[in-house]
């Protein structure tokens, strides 16, 4: 038992962090709300660095990279608020497509996974979608896309109508389940990053903002709110890393681990957003201030790929409704 990252994994994480700090400042996230396609511009730099294609089995195999390394990077994309569909493409769709129809992958292809709504669908080459526990690849031109508005204006969401008869079936129930778990794990990692950002910026604000002649962070009520955020994050983060390990190793209890992680990460980020707004007060309630970009991301991702209640229910079916004699 050794529950920590390798130096290589951490070094790669740090490099991605440096890149995002430079290429994905809050202004880029803000711009993605209003520009044509919701892109921050950081994507190209990530592509160049090899991050976007990292999960292609050939690349991953050559570099010795697995879902553990990817998870650590997705956490950073959450922290910096990267709007692009890196979970949907890199964590979910690319490895599935590359495994089953390697010839479909080109240098410029962008795949997005999802359901019932798919983000960035109009930018994608093809969509990875599930129906009746089968996994399909649907060419963008074979799907009818209807734009939907998310509270997070940078997430370009589309409702998708499609028919299996116009799609390529690329996997069965186990592939569909793996794709789903990868998606839930990916947003769980992003939520950890989002929560960390919300905590950091709120602590900073509480140190600087004065009322009644003292920093508001010196009030015990504010301290305890922020301690609760730190508490949620401290105990959610290892669950996400553990789930990444389980996905990478195809652990039999993988889905329970992913659901436990996603539920805790959703709750941690939701609490972080709630406290961030309450501590900021009215200034956090404007769109001129950056805080709202991360709060809305937290709300969107907390509900995406199964919200906390859904994942708890899935865990419940596994731990409460099975025969106890089958357990370890």
């Amino acid at each position, binding site marked *: 038992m050794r529950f920590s990252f390798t130096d290589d994994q951490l070094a790669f994480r740090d490099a991605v962090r440096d890149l995002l700090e430079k290429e994905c400042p809050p202004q880029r996230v803000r711009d993605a709300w209003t520009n044509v396609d919701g892109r921050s511009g950081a994507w190209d730099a990530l592509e160049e660095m090899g991050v976007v294609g990292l999960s292609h089995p050939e690349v991953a195999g050559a570099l010795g990279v697995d879902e553990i390394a990817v998870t650590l990077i997705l956490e950073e994309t959450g922290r910096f608020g990267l709007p692009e569909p890196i979970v949907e493409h890199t964590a979910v769709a690319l490895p599935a497509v590359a495994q089953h129809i390697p010839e479909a992958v080109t240098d410029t292809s962008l795949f997005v996974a999802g359901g019932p709504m798919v983000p960035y669908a109009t930018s994608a080459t093809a969509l990875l979608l599930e129906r009746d526990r089968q996994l399909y690849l649907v060419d963008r031109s074979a799907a009818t896309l209807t734009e939907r508005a998310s509270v997070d204006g940078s997430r370009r969401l589309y409702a998708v109508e499609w028919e299996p008869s116009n799609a390529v079936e690329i996997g069965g129930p186990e592939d569909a389940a793996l794709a789903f778990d990868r998606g839930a794990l990916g947003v769980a990692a992003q939520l950890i990053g989002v929560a960390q950002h919300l905590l950091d910026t709120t602590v900073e604000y509480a140190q600087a903002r004065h009322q009644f002649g003292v920093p508001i962070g010196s009030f015990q009520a504010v301290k305890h709110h922020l301690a609760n955020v730190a508490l949620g994050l401290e105990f959610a983060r290892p669950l996400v890393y553990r789930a990444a390990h389980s996905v990478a190793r195809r652990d039999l209890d993988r889905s329970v681990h992913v659901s436990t992680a996603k539920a805790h990460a959703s709750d941690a980020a939701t609490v972080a957003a709630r406290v961030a707004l309450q501590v900021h*007060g009215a200034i956090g309630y404007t769109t001129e201030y950056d805080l709202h970009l991360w709060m809305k991301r937290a709300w969107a991702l907390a509900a995406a790929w199964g919200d906390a209640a859904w994942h708890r229910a899935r865990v419940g079916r596994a731990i409460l409704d099975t025969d106890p004699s089958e357990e370890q």
Partner: protein
Amino acid sequence: MDLTFTEHEEAFRAEARAWLEANVPRPALPSGDTREGFARHLEWERMLFDARWAVVSWPEVYGGREASLMEWLIFEEEYYRAGAPQRVTQNGIFLLAPTLFEFGTAEQQDRILPRMASGEEAWCQGWSEPNAGSDLAGITSRAVRDEAGGGWRLTGQKTWTTRGAFCDRLFGLFRTDPEADRHRGLTYFLVDLGAEGVTVRPVERLDGDEGFAEVFLEDAFVPDRDVLGGVNEGWRVAMATTGSERGLTLRSPGRFMATAARLIDLYRRHADATDPAVRDAVIRGWMDAEAYRWQTFWTVTRLMEGGRTGPESSLVKLFWSELDVRIHATALELLGPRAELVDGDDAAWMKGWQFALSGPIYAGTNEIQRNVVAERVLGLPRR
């Protein structure tokens, strides 16, 4: 104890219900926190006023019906039940007017109240400043005597002024005696936003509406007749208004009963796909709205029998603001992955969620309200 409504109360309810059913705009108006929506809401306010529903508890001479507090609650229940528009005049009617009734001169009352009630003159509040939020006594905007003009020259900045970009006039505190203690030397002014030296900048709110404004004042003139309640008496006068803001005038039970009813409706539409844990939260929402309703009837009976509201109004503010957050959080759980949508049939919940989150912040943060409860209701020592 008699928890049935009197014949008179029932007749009042029936009249309100009938009028609202016939007149509430369908489809619903656009948000009153946008420029276009605000104008549409003012038309609605005019309709209310013409039918004498705008200010039911006011004297008839100002357009009211001299309704009792209990009748006012009944009207509010019917208003929300009917899904009628938000009251964009509420800051004037519910916050300034009680202060005018208590501290205003007859001239001020006669001049201001009818135009406020009809919506001809829309009022916004100017409490907060960039460095005076929770710490309201930290106000630095100042008013300097203009003896020649017979008034005052105001300079400073007000912020988080709800619907300030669309309103005509602002009420707020300005420092008239810079030498005095923090809570002294403040005066309550009524400011014309069209006056020279006043600049209003809209600020976009969390939900995308232009709900806020910053108001910049530079030597803006206010005549003496627009001082409310005496020079350097502003803190005492304003506290009467913030009491109303926290207490029952701003959030009547009808609002939460209507929200809980919508939540139950949402639950029924999603029940099949719903985790049973969320069912319990739906039930709690309904029960808490009931609790709010009966605590209000309890308080209102006491007031009608001659009691006064005190620091207990902080308990009321804590309860409704946190109830509103809980109900909306439950609705988002019911919506699951569709919770993030701000278009389509259920978009009102995400919008309502964002609005609900302002409840624990404005009118005194809930942290400060809990201090008030502890110190002034329970008698715990200040630090």
